[in-house]
């Protein structure tokens, strides 16, 4: 069940709608107020208060401001009483219906292995053991800078049940290109159907991941246990 709630941000007082912004505008000093006002109008913000301006160049100004959002925002809030049953490692190991082979890689030109290793390596991260330590999983960690072509070959070779991709670099949306290409290739090769596809990284979230055709996405601060729980639910249903 889902319900809605009308909210505004909270600054000085509840629901006063204040927010803090900063940005750089390519205008002359004398045109800043006008530009800020118009921007705020476009953003449905009222009462813009310019707190600070730094001239980066004669026609480039960094502006800090506070403003109020004009209208309330209606957010959905899930009111379902069922609290998700979050299992610990032992429970997952006992109750997991199949043994799973997991292949993980930092793909494309990404060489940021710390995040993927945090999820995979036995010793894990911040006290949470990685997937290698689960008796119900076999893990192949391909490391960094793995091309999509190579990755697909490895998935086939290991008959992987689960694919874990890490993408940390997002400049100019390079991760979107990379991940879209991967899903396309998996579909073209017919591998997508039998594979649970997961992507993680600090700028990834579940919504983005599912939009791109993955089964799940894991962002900042995710743990191996989060992934294991997802796999458990995915395999149980």
């Amino acid at each position, binding site marked *: 069940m889902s319900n809605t709630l009308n909210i505004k941000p*909270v*600054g*000085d*007082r*509840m629901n006063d709608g*204040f927010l*803090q912004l900063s940005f750089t505008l390519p205008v002359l000093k004398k045109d800043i107020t006008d530009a800020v006002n118009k921007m705020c109008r476009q953003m449905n913000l009222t009462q813009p*208060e*310019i*707190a*600070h301006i*730094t001239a980066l160049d004669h026609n480039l100004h960094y502006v*800090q401001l*506070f403003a109020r959002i004009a209208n309330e925002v209606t957010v959905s809030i899930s009111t379902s009483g069922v609290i998700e049953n979050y299992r610990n490692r032992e429970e997952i190991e006992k109750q997991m219906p199949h043994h799973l082979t997991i292949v993980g890689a930092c793909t494309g030109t990404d060489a940021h292995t710390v995040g993927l290793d945090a999820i995979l390596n036995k010793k894990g991260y911040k006290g949470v053991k990685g997937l290698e330590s689960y008796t119900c999983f076999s893990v192949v960690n391909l490391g960094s800078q793995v091309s999509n072509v190579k990755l697909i070959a490895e998935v086939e070779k290991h008959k992987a049940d689960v694919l874990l991709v890490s993408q940390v670099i997002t400049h100019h949306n390079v991760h979107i290109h990379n991940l879209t290409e991967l899903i396309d290739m998996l579909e073209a090769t017919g591998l997508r159907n039998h594979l649970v596809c997961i992507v993680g990284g600090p700028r990834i979230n579940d919504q983005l991941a599912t939009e791109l055709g993955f089964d799940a996405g894991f962002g900042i601060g995710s743990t191996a246990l989060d992934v294991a729980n997802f796999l458990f639910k995915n395999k149980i249903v």
Partner: protein
Amino acid sequence: MLKLNDIVISECHALAAEIAKDIFDILQRKSTIGIERAVLRLLGINGATSDELRIPHVNVICDKLQKASVLINGTALYVEFLNEHFNTSAEQWIEDLYSNRKSLPNLQGIDITKYKDSLVQKAKIALNKISEQSSVRTTSLKQHGEQTTPWLYVIVATGNIHEDLYQAELAAKQGADVIAVIRSTAQSLLDYVPQGTTTEGVAGTYATQENFRLMRTHLDKVGKELGRYVRLTNYASGLCMAEMAALGALERLDMMLSDSMYGILYRDINMVRTFTDQHFARRIQAYAGIIINTGEDNYLTTSEQFDEMHTVLTSQFINRQFAHLSGLKDEQIGLGHAFEMDTEVENGFLLSMADALLSRICFPDCPLKYMPPTKHIDGNIFFAHVVNTLFNLCSIGTGQHIHLVGILSEAIHIPYIHERMLAIQNTRYVFNYFKDFPAEFKIRDNGIIQHRAVDVLQKAFHLLQQIKQEGLISTIEAGKFGGISRSIYGGKGSEGVFDKSNNYFNPFEKFLP
């Protein structure tokens, strides 16, 4: 720490003592309408008129007694008399007088001395309540232990006490040791204490007895949850200084801004009024175990620390002597100073450290109150956050005691709920990252820090000599503190000052330190 001339420091203390004593001789002969109201507050008269003006009963009665020209004898005995005369509760007869249902009997020539005994009994009961409150504090502190210094002092100031309660709770959970509820703008110029729960303050929340009580109760609850005692503070200085002290004592405030000169300089309150009020206010605070905070930090908002730090030090010497004259012990005297050096000064941090150490050394037993940068903070919140980081470092690095947490939006608005969190995060990070910093370094002899400290001390010494010569009043007239000049005759509230008659009686006098 630093090599300073101990003899100069002792001389400074001695000079300040004489300077304060000169004023003390004047103020001892005076009382004020504010003090009289404070006496009645302590005696439990805490209602307000039932119309929408909500005039405090203590104001109604004191104003009438002033009109009747008997204020000079003190109010308390008249109240005893009137209780008997009207034979109703004080609430009732004040309300009746106010609405002209009844009128004041002729008070001239009435013998009120016979009420002294019963009055003294009531005063004792009142003081017992205060003692009970302070033993609640002591017990809780004994049970939970004292927080390590510097204490994190944060402000709430939404104007609405209910929002304040929530913001204070969050702040305490984030690690605040002391919660200050900032007062609504210019409340200090009201010659009465507003009544009841309030939600309409501007740039602060009205200081009222009921608001004090709500916040105290809430912080006690939060403190229990957190397993520590969360201190509460508010302001005394202002036209209602003594009354505020009384309410603070009754509602167990733990600290109060209570300066001997702030009202004069920054609120243009009459000098004699202020000196007289502060003396009685602080006696109550002394009794109640309240830590006072002085306001020398303000000087650095209207003058430059680089040039004028010695005026801060000078004032601290004097403020402390006034405090002693009110019976406050050093442990209760939170002398104020600040990290207000211009951000562009070369070696500004070293100079600031010297300034902060100097106060620390001159007043080794005082819980110094260290204020964050404000004057040179502009609307660049990122830079302000960084300047606060160095302030935090200077505070832990020089062993400050009460640390007012600087907030990145200082130049713009009253802190937003998350800005306070960012500020506490900044502070806790620095305090932990530099935990043993002071023990780790020895300051170089004859270095920049030492030179600065010697220089500022020397200048303060000269200024104290000059003040001893010319008197504190002329010094203030000359604008030495904060660059602000006030004359002895000017300022608000002088009409509320009077010379005590020979029959003057204040039942608390002899019990207060």
